[in-house]
């Protein structure tokens, strides 16, 4: 789960990292009032995406009136599909140097990596592509943490205008904030050195590990949930992974890999999947709810059910699904592929209750569903 700037910066502040004073507002008058209190300010759009500056979502205001005007312009603006509904009015900083700092999970080293560059302000892909020699990285053993000596070593020899110690201390605090908050990414860009020698975080991107939400209940409510459709929200409430897509062949399978593959094979045979819906793992008892959900998507013309039992038992999944089918009696062509744990019982249930046999394999089931959706059942 991602946190917008206004929600991420308090996490830095709590770890002892300097951040500018700021006030979050939802209308232009409040922006003017905030500017009166803070002096020279920057008005910043709060949306869960980068590139706000390039889109015109960050403006400098020398007076309260200017702050009001900027807020009027920015509020309601659309930045990468997000409509701006709130702005952060932030005290202006005297920027002498801009740096880049981040801590993130690295699947390659299987541990956290601390990154620092003297080229702040650009995004990390640009830094890595254009000035890789200026990007310093340190792989950290999370059991031991990131020491001040480690941070000093990371920035050693870089031209930092006397801010070496301040930056090293900030990097250590950044690492501690990363650990304390189950971050998968904690990025400060730019990390600024002011004219009077203070190291201060001007922006912050924080991404909380979804698997850490359970034990981060204090901060989690401040995160920005993913934009979900009504059906996706229903799936989340039911504990079923459901992603709505724009096709007309409904897909119901167990396990992430098998469900993705079912979508791939539908596409391979010239069809368009209507959804990703999987009831593998602990969700395998939820066949009834899952079937209702995939059928509730408007415009669905056929359904492919692909069960390959391992932990998830085919018979249990089939029982749930057939119960929903009996209740709804949908007028929809459906094709099954069934294999693995509990398959014999599941196939017998299908025969007894729907007088149907599964297709010989998944390709046949997907192809039949695609043909049915196109109205040319073969």
């Amino acid at each position: 789960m991602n946190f917008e700037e206004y929600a991420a910066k308090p996490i830095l502040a709590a770890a002892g990292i300097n951040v500018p004073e700021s006030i979050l507002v939802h209308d232009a008058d409040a922006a003017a009032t905030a500017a009166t209190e803070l002096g020279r300010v920057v008005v910043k759009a709060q949306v869960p995406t980068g590139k706000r500056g390039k889109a015109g979502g960050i403006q400098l205001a020398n007076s309260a009136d200017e702050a009001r005007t900027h807020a009027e312009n920015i509020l309601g603006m659309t930045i990468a599909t997000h409509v701006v509904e709130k702005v952060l009015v932030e005290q202006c900083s005297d920027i002498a140097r801009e740096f880049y700092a981040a801590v993130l999970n690295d699947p390659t080293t299987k541990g956290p990596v601390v990154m620092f560059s003297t080229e702040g302000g650009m995004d990390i892909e640009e830094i890595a592509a254009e000035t890789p020699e200026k990007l310093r990285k340190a792989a950290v053993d999370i059991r031991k943490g990131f020491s001040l000596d480690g941070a000093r070593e990371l920035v050693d020899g870089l031209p930092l205008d006397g801010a070496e110690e301040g930056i090293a201390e900030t990097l250590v605090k950044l690492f501690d904030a990363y650990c304390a908050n189950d971050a998968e990414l904690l990025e400060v860009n730019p990390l600024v050195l002011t004219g009077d020698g203070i190291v201060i975080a001007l922006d912050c991107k924080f991404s909380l590990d979804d698997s850490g939400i359970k034990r981060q209940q204090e901060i989690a409510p401040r995160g920005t949930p993913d934009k979900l459709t009504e059906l996706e929200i229903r799936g989340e409430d039911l504990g079923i992974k459901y992603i709505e897509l724009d096709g007309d062949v409904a897909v119901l399978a167990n396990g992430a890999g098998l469900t993705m593959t079912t979508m791939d094979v539908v596409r391979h045979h010239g069809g368009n999947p209507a959804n990703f819906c999987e009831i593998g793992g602990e969700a395998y008892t939820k066949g009834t709810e899952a079937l209702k959900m995939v059928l509730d998507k408007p415009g669905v013309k056929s359904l492919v059910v692909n069960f390959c039992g391992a932990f998830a038992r085919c018979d249990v999944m089939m029982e749930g699904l057939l119960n929903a089918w009996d209740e709804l009696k949908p007028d929809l062509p459906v094709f099954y592929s069934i294999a693995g744990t509990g398959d014999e019982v599941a196939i017998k249930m299908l025969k007894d209750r729907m007088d149907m046999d599964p297709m010989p394999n998944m390709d046949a089931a997907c192809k039949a569903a695609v043909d049915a959706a196109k109205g040319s059942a073969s």
Partner: protein
Amino acid sequence: MRIVRREHKVLVQGITGKQGTFWTERMQEYGTNITGGVNPKKAGTEHCGVPVYASAKDAMADGGFDATVMFIPPLGVKDAAMDAIEAGAKTIVCLTEHIPVQDVMYFMAAAKERGTSFIGPNTAGTVTLDECFLGFMPAFNDRIFKKGNVGVMSRSGSLATLMCQNIVSAGYGQTAFLGIGGDPVIGTTTRDAVEALDVFEGTEAIVMVGEIGGSMEEDAAEYVAGMDKPVIAFIAGGAAPPGKKMGHAGAIVMGDKGTYASKKKALEAAGVNVLATPSHVGDALKEVL
């Protein structure tokens, strides 16, 4: 990494739970040499015919064990894994999904230091044909698993089940199956699994089941390029929209990273036959075996 054999002693952490019990019984029936279980609250009792210990350390001190398989909820895994690593487990199979990644990185660092072979998290486990299995793959279903000469590895359990069924129905069988898990940070990588299968006795071809996200397939391609045995691959998620986690936390395309096209290109450059659908695996095996 090491492939677990029938003579290896296996511990089950979380043996007394519903799933722990069900799968321990299945593993025992298949031939897995289960010598003990762990549940601190039921230490000193017996379950599924084996002693229950308070910790993996106690199990090691008493009868000893080589490998452990964990049926443990997400927030309990860190302690259980550290217990097993400190006890001296040679192999750990971790089935649990949704473990906080920082916990995973913590015990992964410890496992690396001790030389522990860590499989998972979020895996369905491993099968060594006609010897043993660890986890919850349907090793006992002879339409899915049959002794043969194909080594199989996968990031997904359900898709591997389908692939293994296709292999058996085409008249072939497996030497071993290694499920490595669907998380972004995992102990045994695609490359580690391919290397282990390559040198495993009886393997004459390898089937690699990958997914979009990360760069493990690309990394494995470097090793495959130098292999003599044929490798056949299927990569799931070609039809998945970018920026969405497709059920597995590791299966996500970000920008141009982890795409289907990148993986297909790297594997084909290494001489791998990348299948359009899993149903083609039988024909692909016929060409090379």
